[in-house]
């Protein structure tokens, strides 16, 4: 009995899933810290998705009136879940967390491809890659947001891992597998088109280590699966237009380039925040290239090159696009760190056992220095930036403590429409209020490409006559807005340059004058 227990413990200790479990554990810590339900907005564009999904959950027909420059799949899924489980902000955020968990599995699986002979090391490299990804700046925050970029990238990576990491025995089964991979990639692209950045790397690695005939068969299967699923989802979406999904982004790019030159572009200083990841990735790159052109090497290098090209040519390039760089860097970093540490520790073991032979080759001190530098960089840079992100997550403003949201909830039962923009969209969501569908996405880009003007925004709001208006500093300072709201609305809340106006038809209590407030405090 004792022997069996001992063997079981030994097997458990040697289990290759530990590194993956560790990275998933870290993700769990992030999930527990984040206010998934009550956090007003987590990440930059979190509020757009919440607002759009709420509209579709209440009335799917509103999709026709909505301006939307992103695919519908994520919004439709979230809206369906809202109808099934209730309108909780946690639903899309948990979906992103689950997608991130799937990405961690994909990293773990793909890193294993770099170590054919030693699967244990491959698993360790995968776990390290997952930890490096999660601890990169803002990565943990984006893993908890309702944004569409992170899950799209995650599922595209899952498709790549399934395609490259599994090899069924029979040819026809493998063909079917690649059809499935194409399908998953199409789903990811329907969450956000940025998922397609994985496709060049996926196609390139198909050409490695396979006979030409089967490569072409798998490529056709991948393409067939992708096109079929993509078309089916496009046909079942409320709208599908390449102009909105692709053309508008290209137009915005040229407008940005004309208007602001090199502004809103990729900034190298962002990479200075992750020297440990860069150092580890550099080591991984050297190791991978020296090992020859394996599937892992071709895939990660192609993915890295694609992400770098996007970084240099995409305008505007927002900081959360860095996730696209973090994924290949983490993969290379995991491999680099494990190989470098093993190479640095090996001479210490062999030195004592091998009769003073040049344990090192001569490069042992250099390898030792590189490994120590990498560990030092990791210990010095990662914990502060990761804890800073966790603190930011934990201290995200809560809807239950937000004065504006609480006042909005007071009038929510008698409100059909509400006007809010940007971050305030999320406040409207937490108060259970719908935004006019034409104004559900009023982004900087939409103005840039001439999709809407400030005047049209005001006209649309006048058409809907929303019962509540949560005005930002721009509208507060605008005379046209002020003339109109003062005639038909009552100011019920004002703070930090923001004002909440409620329609006079709801008989709201007006915000007391300054003198009255002072009197109330007995001053």
């Amino acid at each position, binding site marked *: 009995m004792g022997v069996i227990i001992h063997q079981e413990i030994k097997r458990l200790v040697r289990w290759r899933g530990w590194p993956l479990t560790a990275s998933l554990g870290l993700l769990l810590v992030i999930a527990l810290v984040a206010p998934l339900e009550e956090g007003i907005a987590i990440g930059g564009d979190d509020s757009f998705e919440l607002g759009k999904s709420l509209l579709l959950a209440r009335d799917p027909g509103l999709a026709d009136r909505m301006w939307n420059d992103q695919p519908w799949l994520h919004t439709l899924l979230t809206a369906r879940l809202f109808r099934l489980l209730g309108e909780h902000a946690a639903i899309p955020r948990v979906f992103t967390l689950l997608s991130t968990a799937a990405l961690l599995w994909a990293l773990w699986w793909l890193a294993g491809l770099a170590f054919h002979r030693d699967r244990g090391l491959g698993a360790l490299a995968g776990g390290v890659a997952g930890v490096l990804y999660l601890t990169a700046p803002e990565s943990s925050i984006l893993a908890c947001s309702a944004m569409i970029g992170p899950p799209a990238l995650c599922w595209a990576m899952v498709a790549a891992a399934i395609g490259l990491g599994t090899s069924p025995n029979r040819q026809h089964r493998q063909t079917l597998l690649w059809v499935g991979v194409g399908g998953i990639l199409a789903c990811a692209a329907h969450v956000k088109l940025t998922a397609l950045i994985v496709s060049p790397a996926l196609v390139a690695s198909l050409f490695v280590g396979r006979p030409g005939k089967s490569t072409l068969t798998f490529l056709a299967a991948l393409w067939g699966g992708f096109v079929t699923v993509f078309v089916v989802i496009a046909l079942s979406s409320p709208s599908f237009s390449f102009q909105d999904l692709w053309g508008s982004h290209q137009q915005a790019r040229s407008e940005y380039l004309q208007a602001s030159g090199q502004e809103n572009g990729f900034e190298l200083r962002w990479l200075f925040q992750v020297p440990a990841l860069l150092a580890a990735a550099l080591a991984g790159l050297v190791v991978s290239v020296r090992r020859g052109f394996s599937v892992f090497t071709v895939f990660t290098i192609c993915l890295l090159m694609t992400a770098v090209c996007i970084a240099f040519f995409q305008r505007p390039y927002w900081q959360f696009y860095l996730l696209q760089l973090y994924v290949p860097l983490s993969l290379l970093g995991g491999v680099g760190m494990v190989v470098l540490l093993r190479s640095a520790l090996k001479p210490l073991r062999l030195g004592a056992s091998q009769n003073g032979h040049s344990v090192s080759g*001569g490069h042992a001190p250099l390898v030792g*220095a590189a490994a120590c530098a990498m560990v030092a960089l990791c210990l010095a840079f990662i914990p502060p930036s990761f804890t800073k992100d966790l603190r930011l997550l934990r201290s995200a403003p809560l809807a239950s403590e937000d004065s504006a949201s609480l006042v909005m909830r007071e009038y929510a039962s008698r409100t059909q429409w509400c006007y809010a923009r940007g971050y305030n969209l999320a406040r409207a969501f937490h108060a259970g209020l719908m935004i006019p569908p034409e104004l559900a996405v009023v982004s900087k880009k939409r103005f840039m490409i001439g999709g809407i003007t400030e005047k049209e925004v005001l006209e649309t709001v006048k058409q809907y006559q929303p019962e509540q208006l949560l005005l930002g500093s721009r509208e507060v300072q605008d005379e046209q807005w002020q003339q109109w709201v003062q005639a038909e609305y009552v100011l019920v809340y004002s703070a930090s340059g923001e004002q909440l106006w409620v329609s006079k038809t709801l008989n709201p209590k007006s915000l007391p004058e300054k003198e009255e407030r002072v009197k109330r405090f007995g001053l």
Partner: protein
Amino acid sequence: MAVRMALCIMVLRTQEPHVGVLPAVARGRATTVESVSCWRHSFFDRTTTIIQVVMYHMSWQTIAAVLLLSLGSLKMVGVIMGWVNPKAPGFLLDPVMLAWVMGVLEVSLAVLIRFCLPRVAGAAVLAGLGFVFIFYRGVEGIFVQPGGGCPCLGGITSVAPWLRAFEQPLLTALALFLLLFGAWAYLWESSFIKKSSA
């Protein structure tokens, strides 16, 4: 050819004892294959540059000495160029004086570790220096008032402001590197001593 040969001998004279021909033979540690391989790379094989050979056979002492020399020189250059703020508040010592003392100390340690101390002792000194540096980083608040700064990088942040955002983690990384590399070198050198005595 003569220059190449001279460089080659120089490299061999300054490298690890168990790799090069001359010192290795003297200490009886190198294998023939290893020595020949080194000679082939550095002298006969023209595809390998002498810099590659130097890098390949660089001893841990050289690496540590180069780092310490750079840090020490940076402090002294910082004082000479006026990068170190002499009016920085809160130091027990005058910041300029502190930079001088630390600069001279680091350069001296570089020379000691590279040329004077026995290998194991040098590794221990390096690890000790790292430990002291980490300890200093931990208790820095006692010596330096908030905003007082530390002349650890020779006030280079005044000429490279972009570095300011990364100064603290960079200094922690430096301290950790000295400790880890010193510990690694100590273990490595100790493994040879154990084997020799056995």
